């Protein structure tokens, strides 16, 4: 049975009607039209759906929307401020950290979680931090380079 919940996404409060079984990723995409959060697998592995829940990188396909009530949610759409891209978004562009772009929102959200607690990560720390994000086309070299570049931006 559907219930009404309040979700705070990118600083805006939304009231949505959801079934308890609705996954946060679906509600973000289908109810709130925030389609930057991608769904790439059915197994909690690919990380394309990564968002921030109270500042921590989280796979939104593995969280029920009802669990997220009361939390602060940030999606890829919430990173750019006043029309200016986030340093990570710029760095992915500059360093060719994407080709098809499907994994990019999740990669950037995971990287943002890393950079929030570690301002100058090593290559190894970057690779460990994006272990939960799969890229199937760009390859990880430029993604790591982009995150490293954003850290020093």
């Amino acid at each position, binding site marked *: 049975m559907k219930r009404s919940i309040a979700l705070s996404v990118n600083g805006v409060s939304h009231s949505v009607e959801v079934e308890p*079984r609705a996954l946060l990723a679906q509600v973000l995409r289908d109810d709130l039209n925030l389609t930057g959060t991608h769904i790439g697998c059915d197994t909690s592995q690919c990380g394309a759906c990564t968002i921030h829940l109270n500042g921590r990188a989280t796979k939104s396909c593995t969280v029920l929307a009802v669990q997220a*009530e009361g939390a602060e949610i940030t999606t890829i759409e919430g990173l750019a401020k006043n029309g200016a891209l986030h340093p990570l978004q710029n760095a992915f562009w500059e360093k060719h950290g994407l080709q098809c772009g499907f994994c990019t929102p999740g990669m950037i959200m995971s990287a943002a979680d890393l950079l929030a607690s570690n301002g100058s990560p090593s290559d190894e720390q970057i690779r*460990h931090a994006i*272990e939960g994000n799969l890229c199937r086309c760009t390859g990880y070299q430029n993604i790591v380079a982009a995150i490293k570049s954003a850290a020093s931006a």
Partner: protein
Amino acid sequence: MIPASFDYVRAKSLRDALNAIGTDGTKVLAGGHSLIPMMRFRLAQPGRLLDIGQLAELKGIDLKGRGARIGAGTSYRELLDSPELAERYPLIAEATRGIGDVQVRNRGTIGGGLAHADPASDMPAVMLALGATFNLRSKGGKRSVAAADFFTGAFTTALASDELLIDIALPAPPKKAGMAYASFEQKASGYAIAAAAAVVTKSRKTITGVTLALTGVGDRAYLADASGAVGSHGDDAALEAAVANVTKGIDVNGDIHASVEYRSHLARVVARRAIALALSRAG
């Protein structure tokens, strides 16, 4: 895939949770990173989820005294964010770094993982090696269960349907003990095909104590006998002999990732590696 329909109840306090638990078809939801994937595959179809994920009473790490008390709702991330915990029990930090990925560690909780009791999960072996005690509570009372008595089978524990895991009590580690976690993982999932947690003490060059726990090998994590290493200097031959029987009496899993023979071999390999590494850190 989307889980089958269920009813959802969010506990507002521990008392609230203990009142709501135990009714037919109710499953407890903490971080959800074991349960929700199973529900999406419809391997689990609980009629009702009791969400304890927001309960502050279940979170936190208390390091007063020489042991530790870890709230069941403490996330893996929070475990890793405690340098004091890592200093006292480096085994916990070493194993936790390899659990899932960042996103999983941000949400997954130590108590949730232990209560889920996946036969290949890492933390049960760590708890066995450290001699943990699990404190359980129900509406009617409380009791404590040693880690060695808690895991009763695949995805099965000593928890009664109306009981909640509240916290984990760890005794002070043996003085100057070395600890190590060695895992041979299935690459795609990261789950252990076989993994070992070891706590080793020594006097001068001689091993004086070994506690060894294995996971991924049988239907549950278990304490294995490696006492044959005591009295030796931990050279290859001595450790080889000491781990020869670590799967004795265990119904070793065979699956597409590892046959019974191969997994038994890996159990000995990770046991030897964990003891050797722990020994190198003892002193």
